[in-house]
């Protein structure tokens, strides 16, 4: 992405946040709006429990924080999920699985990354086997900062995401499509011989329309 936009990590987020959404809103029909509203109102979460963030997801769903009241509920498999939550540092070994899970989700799909580890490596900044910047490999829609962020922060993140969805903002999955070559090159660089087969992403390359 860097080569196209000249930004990296949360710099890009700044850019995207600052983008003008007014034009988008005008292009939406009533049906589009309804659909967008429905999408934000019902988020099925595939919580990829990597790192310490996995422990933070659980209270989110239980009585104390009760994310269900926002229509957020867990999903068992990527096929049913709308949001992928990457909850912490990603080892290279885990990255492969995360990418696979992400590619198997059905569009529209969103990625929320938890904690500083996903932003810049965090306390694992010099580890030999973790991924430092997750958005080099997956189109993260939202980073939730902290080490680890509390469930309240997580809920805030979700609400922010819901708002962006309702506004009809261009989701990360479209970025993934547009910059597939770049994402794939990054992935290939890290994964090397363990690179995923392209059966889940090839259709994007041939210009597949979802």
């Amino acid at each position, binding site marked *: 992405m860097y080569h196209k936009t000249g930004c990296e990590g949360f710099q890009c987020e700044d850019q995207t946040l600052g983008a003008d959404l007014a034009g988008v809103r005008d292009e939406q029909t009533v049906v589009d709006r309804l*659909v967008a509203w429905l999408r934000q109102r019902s988020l099925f979460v595939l919580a*990829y429990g990597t790192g310490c963030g996995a422990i933070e997801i659980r209270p989110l769903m239980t009585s104390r924080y009760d994310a269900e009241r926002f229509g957020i509920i867990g999903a068992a*498999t*990527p*096929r049913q999920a709308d949001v992928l939550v990457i909850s912490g540092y990603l080892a290279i070994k885990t990255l*492969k*699985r*995360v990418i*696979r*899970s992400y590619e*198997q989700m059905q569009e529209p799909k969103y990625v929320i990354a938890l904690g500083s580890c996903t932003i810049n490596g965090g306390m694992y900044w010099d580890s030999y086997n973790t991924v430092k910047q997750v958005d080099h490999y997956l189109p993260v829609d939202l980073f939730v900062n902290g080490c680890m962020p509390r469930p309240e922060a997580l809920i805030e993140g979700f609400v922010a995401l819901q708002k962006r969805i309702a506004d009809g903002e261009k989701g990360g999955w479209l970025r993934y499509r547009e910059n597939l070559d770049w994402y794939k090159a990054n992935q290939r660089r890290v994964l090397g011989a363990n690179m*995923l*087969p*392209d*059966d*889940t*992403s*090839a*259709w994007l390359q041939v210009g*597949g*329309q*979802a």
Partner: protein
Amino acid sequence: MRLFLRVLSLMVVVTPAVTWFAWDGALVWPLFGGATLSFDVTPLASFFLLLLAMGAPLAALPMLRKEEPDWQLALFALLVLGMQGLLLAQDLVGFFIGWEIMTWSSWLLIVRSPRTDAGTAASYILFNLSAAFLLLAGLLGVYSLTGSFAIQALVDLTLAQGLVLVLLFGAAFLIKIGTLPLHLWIPRSYDQAPEPVTVVLSALVSKMGVYGLLLMLILFPEMPGRWFGDWLNGPLSGYGLAWIGVITSIVATFKAIAQDDMKRLLAYSSIGQLGYVTTAIGVGGALGISGALYHALVHTLVSLLLFISFAGIIAQTGQRRFNDLGELIYRMPISFFGVLIGIIALAGMPPLPGFASKFLIFVALIEAQWILLFAAVILSSAAAFLYCYKLIYAPFLGQANSPEARVAREAPWPYLIPQIILMGMLVGLGMFPGMGTALADPVLAALGLAPLDGPSLGTLATPYGGYDGVTLMLVFGIAFALVTALFYMLRGQLRRAGSRQDLSFAGEVPTPDQPLHYGAGMGRELRRIPLIGWILARSSSGFFSGLAERVERLAEHSSRLYPSQPWRWVQSFVVVFAVLLTWGLVRGGGL
């Protein structure tokens, strides 16, 4: 010569159809001692003759392939002749002759298969001959009572006479039907017989046992009522028979679920389905009998369809275990639809006719108020869903699990034509469920029961209510079409998965050589359910193999009676002579 043999055999194979359409007048053939064999078509025979007339030519089609040996068709023609003779016979000797021709010609068909082992060959012939000899004994019993072999109502029997005769005939027919625990010969022989032959065994030969069982209703009109008394609105003997049938079907169903070989599974399923028929006959009454006939009809069509489909698969892939197949749906689509229709009918799901026959049986049970039996039938019926699913999943769905399954091609036409015809028949019968009862009504009349007399062919009517097959089929069809159309009207696009390995697999990436097929293991965990585990851990094969071992040991002892030294021979003569002489002299009498 080959061509002549084939044409001749084919002509014989269509004779049941000719007989069914064009028979008029009786045929009489003299036997010794003034006895005669006579042949005619009775309503009951006519029903089963119809099954034969439909089944025989369809089953013969796969045998016409070049790959199949000549003798197969010729022996099959003989088998058809035997069954036809059995059905047409008006006397027990003719019945027995047909029965035995059927037995040994089918045995020869089985034994010439390269897969048949000695144990199977022996168990098939010994069980069937035991049945035949029990039948013969019963027939001679009837002869000693009436002085004639004619099939007629036996009245005024004493309890002992009746009991002995009923046991002899009943055991014979129950062996043929494959009732527990006398079913052991069925799975082995169905499994190991050549594929086109298994079709015949399951679809047609087993029905002859049903015919025999129904014949007993004619032979022993007093059996239900007089001998054992009543039990809950029905005869106790019928109650017993019904339980025998239902236990057979339950156990056979569980055994079927545990099989990992297609034909073996179908064999157990066949046993189970005929268990329903036995139950229905046990229930008796107009509903029970017509349910039995209807189910026999459906099972004939279904087992023809399924066995022919699987014969096609085996011919194309050379594999017969669930583990070694998979994903054939794209390579053998017509066979897939054949099996799909087959299992829907087999599982007794509406709108196909399997439901119609089961409905009749259920209503008969409710009418008789035999509720526990009803629950037991439901148990085996519901458990049958499991093996039905296994039947369609393991070969056609899932992932191809052997090189053959990956490159297989659609079965050749001799397999497909009968499948297409049978699918049409099943769907037609499902749409017009009244056709089955219309066919069964003459039999009911002949048995002295009130026919069901549906208002139209589209409805299956019973005194307890019925259903309309045409409406059902239309509603389902229209609903299906509308749902599919609406789905396409929604936004977004349907995308085909990039590869067969594109599975949600907990993030893992399965490789093509990973065993992703869940064929043979399916149903294995059922063993953990106490009842099923208990049933599956049991088998009557130990008893029979023990019996065989005892006989062998006895034979070993008796062969010691035949020494090879001359002086031993003379010794035994002298001893016997001396003993007899002493005994004779002590007795003091002359000759």
